[in-house]
């Protein structure tokens, strides 16, 4: 609405135009919102509704399970308090004990023999700066576990070393995990490469970390 400065009358043409424009804008806005596509859904929705795939997750865990139950991984996740040794996963010679922190006891601590790197020579002690078993308070046993039991255990913070999903994902590149693929002379490697293992590990987790039925 405008006042004509010459005759002082209100200019109704301008008011009409303004009204029509407002209504038009309103209609366009309503129409546009009806076709709106949200590009950034809630994160949780992304994980729980879109990415989850129990079939793909369980299939990926087949590879994960094969690796974790291979001697390179399982030997340091024994059912008892003595680590396992060799490709046949026999009890470690000298029967070193786990100890409270998983680093051995008294004169039989892991790092007394296991150096920061592999010792040269056939079947000599393999090495890593962090060489240890899981601690006594959380033994994280692999030996004897079915695929179902192990998958459940791996995502249970009370049994997996208090790891959330982010930490589980990072664990694929943990120094001791990687050491499995550098086992020293005379020891077989895990059944797939670390890259293949990591891919399966991430797929299993990102697709929902489903446990196989058995």
């Amino acid at each position, binding site marked *: 609405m405008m006042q004509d400065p010459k005759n002082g009358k209100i200019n109704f043409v301008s008011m009409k135009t303004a009204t029509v424009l407002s209504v038009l804008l309103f209609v366009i806005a309503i129409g546009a919102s009806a076709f709106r596509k949200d590009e950034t859904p809630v994160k949780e929705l992304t994980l729980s509704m879109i990415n989850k795939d129990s079939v793909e997750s369980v299939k990926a865990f087949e590879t994960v399970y094969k690796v974790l139950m291979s001697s390179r991984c399982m030997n340091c996740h024994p059912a008892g308090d003595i680590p396992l040794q060799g490709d046949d996963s026999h009890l470690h*010679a*000298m*029967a*070193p*004990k786990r100890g409270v922190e998983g680093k051995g*006891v*008294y*004169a*039989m*601590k892991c*790092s*007394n*023999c296991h*150096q*920061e790197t592999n*010792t040269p*020579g056939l*079947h*000599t*002690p393999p090495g890593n700066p962090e060489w240890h078993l899981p601690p006594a308070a959380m033994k994280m046993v692999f030996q004897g576990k079915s695929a179902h039991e192990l998958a459940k255990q791996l995502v249970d913070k009370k049994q997996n070393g208090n790891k959330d999903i982010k930490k589980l994902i990072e664990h694929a590149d943990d120094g001791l995990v990687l050491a499995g693929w550098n086992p020293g002379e005379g020891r077989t490697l895990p059944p797939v490469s670390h890259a293949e293992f990591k891919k399966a590990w991430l797929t299993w987790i990102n697709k929902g970390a489903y446990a196989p039925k058995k």
Partner: protein
Amino acid sequence: MAKITLNINKKEYPLEADPQMPLLWAIRDLAGLKGTKYGCGVAQCGACVVHLDGEAVRSCVTKVSRAVGKQVVTIEGLSETNSHPVQKAWQEIDVPQCGYCHSGQIMSAVVLLREKPNPTDQDIDDAMAGNICRCGTYLRIRAAIHLAADEQKKAAPQG
């Protein structure tokens, strides 16, 4: 080869050695301390045990570079007059037969008694299982460790 200084039995030893050399060779051949023995060379028998910052490491697989800046103690450094309670107990019980493994046995027993002053038979087995004795003196070793524990207790200041 590199110039390396090792602290062995509280004495500085300037040595020229490959940093990858087993500590055992530096102790025996370069520092001239022959009490520590070579047994298997692959950390399986315990004859070569010395203390590295108080831990009973196997010097045959421990690289010289790991010992730099740390305190190495060999059987010669345990006491000047063989008067350490464990050495005295070993003499009292007359533990050794051939004696070859016993510097390693004693060094391991000392760590056990430091960490567990009153060890049970099971503690002794857990601590000493990595020290092999081809003469089979295990029962005397166990008795000597119990005796040393008693001696340590008597010698400790009463609180």
